[in-house]
């Protein structure tokens, strides 16, 4: 069992207890996560580092309710997430969790602003005018205020990833999960994306968990969680 809790008195945005996960079947089955415990606090940026295959991304997807754990529990804003309830997981993802992946995954047919508006459209809390205004504001915050109308194919790799960051913040989630957000970028763009991500998260009091192989970026985070063989060390 491994446990990390260094947040002090800060508000817990996300917590997991005794998470276990196996991947594969039969003889090829691997015990990827071996009883992971973790708390993420609002306004804090955490980095998970570790060798490939140690379970970093798997943990991230479990915390983001994109996958199901074999056992253990996840709590968001102090409330346990019911396991095996896809509808509830989907709702929680829409309201409380933002994702940034290694690849931007922007929808190529939509402009930058429209991509940012996608989570807002689903949540349905804002009027179309408010959604548009918020999308422009978020893109402005990541330095793309003058490129809101551009299609993803008309943006550079770094710009595309910054649109993805803006999109992840669209519904003001309490937790931001990033899976190697700079893994596909050069040094300059990596720094720019990382700065945008961490600055905005801190400003908005969000808990940020970044999976990265980049030790320099990890060093810039508030805390570093080292993982090996499915456990924090």
């Amino acid at each position, binding site marked *: 069992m491994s446990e990390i809790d260094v947040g002090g008195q800060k508000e817990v945005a996300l917590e997991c207890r005794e998470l276990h996960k196996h991947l594969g079947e039969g003889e090829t089955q691997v015990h990827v996560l071996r009883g992971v415990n973790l708390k993420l606090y609002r306004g804090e940026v955490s980095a998970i580092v570790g060798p490939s295959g140690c379970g970093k*991304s*798997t943990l991230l*997807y*479990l915390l*983001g309710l*994109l*996958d*199901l754990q074999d056992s253990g529990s996840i709590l968001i804003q102090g409330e346990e997430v019911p396991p095996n309830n*896809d*509808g509830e997981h*989907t*709702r929680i*993802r*829409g*309201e409380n*969790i933002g*994702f940034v*992946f*290694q*690849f931007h*995954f922007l*929808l190529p047919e939509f402009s930058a602003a429209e991509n940012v508006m*996608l*989570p807002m459209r*689903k*949540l349905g809390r804002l009027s179309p005018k408010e959604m548009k205004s918020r999308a422009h504001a978020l893109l402005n915050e990541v330095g793309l205020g003058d490129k809101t109308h551009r299609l993803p194919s008309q943006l550079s790799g770094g710009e595309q990833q910054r649109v993805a960051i803006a*999109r992840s913040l669209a*519904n003001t989630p309490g937790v931001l999960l990033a*899976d*190697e957000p700079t893994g596909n970028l050069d040094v300059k763009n990596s720094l720019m994306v990382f700065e945008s991500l961490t600055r905005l998260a801190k400003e908005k009091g969000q808990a940020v968990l970044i999976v990265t192989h980049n030790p320099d970026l990890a060093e810039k985070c508030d805390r570093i969680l080292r993982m090996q063989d499915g456990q924090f060390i």
Partner: protein
Amino acid sequence: MSLAGIVFGVGFFISTQAQLSGYQELFIETILGTDGAIRIEDRIQDANVFVAASTTKNTSTNFFITDKNNRRFVEGIEHPDNVIEAISELENFEAASPVIKGSIQLQSPLRKDNGQVYGIMVDEHIAVSALEDQIQLGSIEDFRGAPTGIIMGHKMAARLDVTVGDSIIIRAVDQQRRYRITAIFETGVSDIDKTRVFMHLSAARSLLKKPHGVSFIQVSIYDRDHAMVDAEAIERVAKHFSAPWQEREKSWMQLFKTLQISAAITVSTIIIISGLGMFSTLFMIVMDKTREIAILRSMGYTRNDISNIFLWQGVIVLICGTILGCGMGYLITFAISYLPMPLSGIFATEYFVVNSTAWHYVQAVIAAIIIVMIACFAPSRKAGKLVPGDVIRGTAA
């Protein structure tokens, strides 16, 4: 490709159904215009025989005997006026025409020919047939004013090489008489046009030596589709065999129905093939868009939201395809109706006959909806079932 398939499938479906329906409609109009909606004919004597067994001042004992072996077949209608009076009470009854029918031999200066004479009352028969409209040469008025006038089918007139105004000898039973051709008709039905001769009922009675009764009564009704029910009612009321047009032309109607179903199935294969195309296309799109699906799921889009995206693609193709297909069907049908297609035998027409109804459009749209929805269902369901974690893990790895 899928859109084109839906457009062509719907368009061809509508146009083929319109053609078959057109010829069927013309056939029905032709048979109604010649032999009427219902024909009341012979009678088989009732098997129940009423027997008054004993009668006193205050009581009587009566009973019926059923004697099926001794039933008598009664040819024709002995009391046509009584029958017409009885059936005229029917709500759907429009008109009735008593007709005497018999075999004759016709002799023109050129040759002899056999035929059937129909003795009619002019006004009554016009009310139950399209005889007046079927006259090609001469007029019904000339016939009305000529006691020895006859109206002859155009094929018979051609075979005998006679025309309006000519005289002709008709032989029947054991006598022959001379008649004047006052009009020539064409129904489009070969068998009628080459054998049938109309003359006044009184003249036919005299020629065929049938002073009483008639051979049959031809009945027209307001709602032709109600003929089966009316014929049954007439049989009950008039105690005579009664043949509605659907029964008389059952084999032809079955042929038309079979052709319509066959054409619908054949043309639907175009829609089915386009549906298969749509199925494979959507499946490929789903496989190609797994990352986009995963990211939408990560944003809070539900399985149904994802499925609906692909269903909507199908619906959009369906809506565009059916609208364009209906338009294409209308245009094809319209164009076909102007194509020359001279035809006679069971009916006569100079052009392709079409009869486009809203039902044809509805059928085509329903066929397209069913096929497209089936084609979209599996891919959209697969899209909705994708687990975002699996997709993203696979991509990130």
